[in-house]
């Protein structure tokens, strides 16, 4: 089978230098070691299921793959072993797998993602906007204190400011969480529907505000002739008339792994934040070296990754940031969750905001 071939290839290439383990953020807080995982599977134990269990703590944040001298894509190896196993990590997802259940229902239901957002839309446009699962997050993660729906409102308003009335297609979840939890069947059902929908609609450009959806459309979908853009790439500062008065103090940007290391979008969001008149300072670990928030695909929300999030917020605190901007709903959720914990009351005195919401507020397109 393809997966075993893939594992085989990786095992052959790896010469156990340990660069991956040296850079792995999980290694700082646990005994997880990518190098060890490869070594273990070398011992003759080639069952992809047991590799999946062994690599369960992996955040698939892509730091190791960026470091590896042999160019081994360790996250791909983890993904392949999770998908070859029997959905073992689905049951490990946080919050009782509620979003996974919704995605499964969505795959067979008529409707998928809600399309009601503030701002003007046009069903004849060849530029589409894809909001992702933000409305579902609003329902089940409201205790985090983030208004996810505002991300969609802000994005549509920003596109309107650019002179574009986007079309919001009847699409379903992009399938990111399903795939990275190892439920390949669900991912295939969702992606088949979405691909068909996009192709039949005749749109030419699809603008995405979520880092994970963006990565999925770029890397795991086959959308020929459709240009996938993150909203930070689509927005043109000259057309937006950003008010360049600085009032929010120091602003920093946390690179989501799906947008940064996976897709190489580093400059576009920074450029817009700087244009917005904010006093921009990067954290110690930025761009390729940005540390993961720890909870990709709703896995591994535990003490270990909490320590990672605390380290990241400490970095932001150290540069005196008053606002931390990110472009991924997972990062937004989990940093806000940590910030709002009772024991952290007053420790992290900063605003953690979504990229589109921040820019929309700066150009007067927010709520």
């Amino acid at each position, binding site marked *: 089978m393809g997966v075993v071939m893939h594992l085989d290839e990786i095992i052959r290439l790896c010469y156990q230098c340990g660069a991956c383990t040296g850079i792995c953020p999980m290694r700082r807080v646990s005994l997880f070691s990518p190098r060890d995982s490869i070594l273990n599977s070398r011992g003759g134990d080639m069952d992809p299921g047991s590799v999946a269990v062994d690599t369960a703590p992996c955040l698939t944040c892509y730091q190791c793959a960026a470091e590896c001298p042999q160019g081994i894509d360790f996250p791909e190896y983890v993904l392949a072993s999770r998908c070859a196993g029997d959905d073992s990590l689905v049951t490990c997802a946080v919050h*009782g797998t*509620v979003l996974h259940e*919704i995605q*499964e*229902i969505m795959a*067979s239901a008529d409707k998928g993602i809600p399309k009601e957002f503030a701002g003007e839309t046009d069903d004849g446009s060849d530029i589409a906007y894809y909001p992702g699962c933000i409305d579902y997050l609003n329902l*089940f993660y409201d205790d985090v204190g983030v208004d996810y729906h505002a991300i969609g409102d802000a994005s549509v308003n920003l596109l309107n400011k650019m002179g574009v009335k986007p079309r919001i297609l009847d699409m379903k979840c992009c399938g990111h969480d399903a795939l990275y939890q190892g439920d390949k069947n669900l991912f295939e059902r969702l992606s088949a529907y979405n691909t068909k929908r996009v192709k039949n609609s005749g749109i030419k450009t699809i603008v995405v505000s979520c880092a994970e959806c963006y990565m999925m459309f770029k890397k795991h979908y086959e959308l020929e002739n459709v240009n996938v853009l993150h909203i930070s790439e689509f927005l043109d500062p000259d057309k937006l008339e950003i008010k360049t008065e600085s009032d929010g103090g120091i602003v920093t940007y946390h690179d989501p792994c799906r947008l940064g290391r996976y897709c190489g979008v580093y400059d576009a969001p920074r450029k817009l934040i700087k244009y917005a008149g904010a006093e921009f300072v990067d954290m110690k670990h930025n761009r390729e070296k940005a540390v993961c928030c720890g909870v990709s695909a709703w896995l591994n929300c535990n003490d270990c990754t909490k320590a990672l999030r605390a380290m990241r917020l400490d970095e932001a605190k150290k540069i005196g940031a008053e606002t931390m901007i990110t472009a991924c709903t997972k990062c937004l959720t989990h940093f806000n969750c940590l910030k709002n914990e009772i024991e952290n009351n007053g420790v992290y005195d900063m605003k953690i905001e979504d990229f589109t919401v921040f820019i929309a507020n700066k150009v007067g397109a927010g709520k």
Partner: protein
Amino acid sequence: MESDRVPKIISFVCNWCSYDELGSDDDTKVIRVMCGGRVDPVEVFRALKGGADGVFVAGCPEDGCRYIEGNKKMMGRMERVSRALEYLGLDGRLRVIKATPNDAVKLPEMMNVFRERLKKLGQSQLKNGEF
């Protein structure tokens, strides 16, 4: 579209107010919970995913919860679930009832009303599971 098919219903019923009045049969399964607050959104989604046409949840009215605020939790959770079902195009397939033990005699009738409504909605399209 109406047919003779009897809708399949999963009902989660609070032990203290409603359980005594409802009974299981072939098409309606009654699951006793010690409090309406015990019903996790995941269970409602799983029931629907598993092929149920509707989900019926009954708990105590405000100020009547044996565990102080379980019923408030139930209402909060079920409100979210019904919003999510609306987004998914499955509105009307969840019925949430607040009943005192005195009202509970009306429950079989309420269940019948719900059953009729589900008949009108037709069979759930999520028929990839088994009841």
